[in-house]
């Protein structure tokens, strides 16, 4: 029985709740902030990693991923269904009654962003003393991503736009703005605006010479704030769900979390709109996610490839390819064109590899579905991989720059204040230079990369079962995806092992 792909699960996710869920997870994949770590001309850090038999770790990691594929193939389809549906109800929430709290949280976030922008403008010029770059690149971009992978979609409540929008449009003449936004967000736009936004973000982070410059970053953050206020006032809430880059990003990541609020339809219909707060198996909420079509898949591919490129662009191998001596790295300014091109090429390569794997998978299982639907159908399996790359890549940055962020928060405007009593906190940087500590972190990085790919294999298999109705062909159909996952495991572990600059 050949069922068109869309009939299986994409069509079930047409409701607004489902779409929202999928968009959440879309966002999850990790971006990479080009934040400089000690390395390069320095013998420590990656020098200690070179002493390890890293090739054995790489081979071992790929073997584990391959073995997991074999194991997954033996698991009956009903086990996947059961695993996906497994829930422990922790309680329930009434979204209507929680809204004031959400509005307040968003207003507080807006105030915090405003303070940070001021600090970026008038505070210290040192990116390790000014709170803006530290809060943006370490606490928010890295720490917040981890938080979403653990605790669900917090950004829906602490984004800086929704609170003010609700307050302004809650009563009076502007009320109509919310009831009937001046413009309707076009459904066919999908999350393409967020894709474009993420591309710009990735370029700024990975290629622009000074993403941590406080004054530059203050301008960028302020501009981003204004643009999306414009968007939400013109298009309403739909803008924040589909076009705001980090709504899409964090929503995707949050689908990995065991904790989440199930939409009313999935919980008890009699509950009067209350949503059940449940505990699910990690990452399996992704199976219930509504993929925003090709644009959602493109978003994930972009996120994954940008994090990968951040790693790649620092390797001696990449610099050698460019004819650059890494020991006297010429700086990011000199490499803007090369890195821009590299980013585009890597995104393209990953997109082609993924598209090819998905189409081959469909052919092997005898599925007839449009390429667009196939591309979207398997995209959730990219989320754990992207998140794993993000985690592995940025863990050391968070550990060190998180401490600098605490110091900076104590004196945000460089006025000699000590608001938190942490202005003179002794920052422990040996976390990333002392071999004993470095090895602990490195093994955690390797573990998470392998685990992320195993999760990707599991998800891809479950998705294939769903679209083929559990036929035996699924195992064979997943071979192209296995090759893709093996390749990406290899790349991820190699990036962790090869010499790189900071």
């Amino acid at each position, binding site marked *: 029985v050949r069922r068109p792909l869309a009939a299986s699960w994409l069509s079930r996710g047409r409701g607004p709740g489902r779409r929202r869920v999928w968009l959440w997870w879309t966002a999850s994949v990790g971006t990479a902030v080009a*934040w*400089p*770590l*000690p*390395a*390069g*001309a*320095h*013998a*420590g*850090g*990656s*020098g*200690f990693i*070179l*002493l390890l038999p890293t090739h054995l770790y790489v081979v071992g990691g790929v073997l584990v991923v391959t073995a997991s594929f074999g194991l997954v193939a033996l698991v009956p389809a009903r086990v996947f269904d059961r695993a996906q549906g497994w829930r422990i109800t922790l309680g329930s929430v009434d979204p209507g009654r929680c809204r004031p709290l959400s509005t307040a949280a968003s207003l507080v976030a807006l105030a915090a962003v405003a303070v940070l922008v001021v600090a970026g*403008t*008038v*505070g*210290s*010029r*040192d*990116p390790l*003393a000014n709170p803006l770059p530290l809060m943006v690149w370490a606490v928010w971009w890295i720490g917040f991503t981890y938080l979403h992978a653990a605790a669900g979609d917090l950004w829906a409540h602490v984004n800086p736009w929704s609170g003010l929008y609700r307050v302004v449009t809650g009563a009076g003449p502007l009320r109509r703005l919310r009831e009937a936004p001046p413009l309707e967000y076009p459904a066919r736009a999908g999350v393409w605006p967020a894709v474009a936004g993420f591309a710009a973000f990735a370029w700024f982070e990975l290629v622009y*010479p*000074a993403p*941590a*410059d406080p*004054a530059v970053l203050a301008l960028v953050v302020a501009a981003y704030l204004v643009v999306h206020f414009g968007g939400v006032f013109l298009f309403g809430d739909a803008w924040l769900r589909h076009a705001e880059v980090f709504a899409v990003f964090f929503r995707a990541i949050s689908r990995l979390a065991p904790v989440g609020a199930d939409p009313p339809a999935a919980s008890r219909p009699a509950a009067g709109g209350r949503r059940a707060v449940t505990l699910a198996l990690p990452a399996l909420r992704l199976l219930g996610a509504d993929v925003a079509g090709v644009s959602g898949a493109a978003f994930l591919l972009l996120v994954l490839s940008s994090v990968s490129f951040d790693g790649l662009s620092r390797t*001696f*191998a990449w*610099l*050698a390819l460019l004819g650059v*001596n*890494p*020991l*006297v*790295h*010429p*700086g*990011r*300014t*000199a490499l803007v064109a090369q890195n821009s091109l590299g980013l585009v090429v890597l995104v393209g390569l990953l997109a082609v590899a993924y598209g090819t794997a998905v189409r081959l998978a469909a052919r092997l299982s005898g599925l007839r579905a449009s390429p667009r639907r196939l591309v979207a159908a398997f995209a959730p399996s990219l989320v754990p991989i992207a998140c794993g790359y993000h985690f592995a890549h940025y863990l050391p940055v968070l550990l060190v720059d998180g401490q600098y962020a605490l110091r900076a928060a104590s004196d945000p*405007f*460089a*006025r*000699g204040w000590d608001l938190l009593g942490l202005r003179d906190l*002794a*920052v*422990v*940087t*040996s976390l990333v*230079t*002392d*071999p004993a*500590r470095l090895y602990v972190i490195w093994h955690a990085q390797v573990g998470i990369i392998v685990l992320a790919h195993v999760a990707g294999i599991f998800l891809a298999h479950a998705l294939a079962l769903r679209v083929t109705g559990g036929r035996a062909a699924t195992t064979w159909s997943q071979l192209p995806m296995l090759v893709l996952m093996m390749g990406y495991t290899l790349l991820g572990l190699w990036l962790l092992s090869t*010499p*790189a*600059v*900071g």
Partner: protein
Amino acid sequence: MTEIEARDASVSRRSFLRAGGVAALGAAVAGPWPRRAAAQGTGPLRLGFQVHRTGIGAVYGRWYERTTTAAVKLINEKGGIAGRPVEIVAEDDGTDPKRGAEVVEKLAVHHKVDLIFGTLFSHVVIASAPRAGELKIPYLVVSEGYHVASGRLNRYVFQPGITDVRAQVTAVAPWILKNLGKKVTLIFPDYAFGHDHRDFFSRVATAQGGTVRALVPIPPTETSFTKYFPRVPADTEVLYHVMVGPGVLTFVKELGEHFGARRPQLFGFIDSLEGVDLASPGLDFLEGTYFWEAFPRYLPSEAPQHVRLYRERVGINESGASVGDPKDVSTASHMFGCWETLFVIKQAVERSGYRRPGADYKAFVETLEGFQSFPEGIEHPQGSKRFVGRLHQVFGQQLISKVEKRRLAVVHRTAIEDSMYAPEADYTTQPL
């Protein structure tokens, strides 16, 4: 009582408190905009600090920042410079040469600082210095490169706080030939840094009766070194190595695997292992070998009081690691240069009567060029120095240390004269 404490004992409590109060006020209103008082030469002395906060120089930059902060704190405690509190305006250059030039301009034009100091990596110095020359603002680098003394830069660029690589090699080469052996093979990274060592060492060694048995350049991106070792001639008595980068630990490990107990004498530069614990894995083979150091990473038992005070103020323990994070090893052989540079600035400002940017630079530059020596003390904890005004370069003692029980012990301190070479430039003939 240390030297500076004795000299400043005459500073009254009132003037001390007044300077401190002004310093506090300066800190309280620190921001990107210059203040009227500063522009008039009565407020804080604003020093632009071009720092490698990010990029490949970040490890060095971190310690340069800590040393600078400690020195400024001490200077302000003692009444500031010419009675004015010192305020640091730090700008990250990303260890990026093009950004370096932009930072110089931003500090000079936008922040209107009085002077700029602190740049380390040679390629950033070389790209930034011309802008300082165009803007006619004194630019005091802490780079160790020969680019200042070579005459390649301009009249506004000085290196008064750290010696250059040519002086270092010139000073240690005779000791190597005399004590370790006359047949030397050099292993060095195949780019400018390694080439400097190759050229300067070869020149001195051959002039003093030594023989350079072989030159073994290693590509900068190399991560496996065993294949190069057969190129070391069997009769080599000394292996001179200056590898840098993440491959150093592997280099040492493979060196041990190749040569074992039948190794020649080894002499290296601590640049290879700045910021790295000598007890780290892979470094066992270095036991009993020698290194050049500029400043003893490990506190010698006979260290004078000013050295102890310097270490205490900067926050490093007896092993040269951070007091707050004992696994964080400092860049001891470089960072003292920031400290000493700041005290040279103090001296030059006070002697020249410098008050404000612009016309006063002439007096500042000429006063600095007129300096001839700096005595050892808390202002110059590394040791006494000779300053050659025409070269804009300071000369000092160099240390040779031996690895004993995975620590470095100083075995020889060269004389300042050992490092002097025939001058090849004269900046004082350039117009101001």
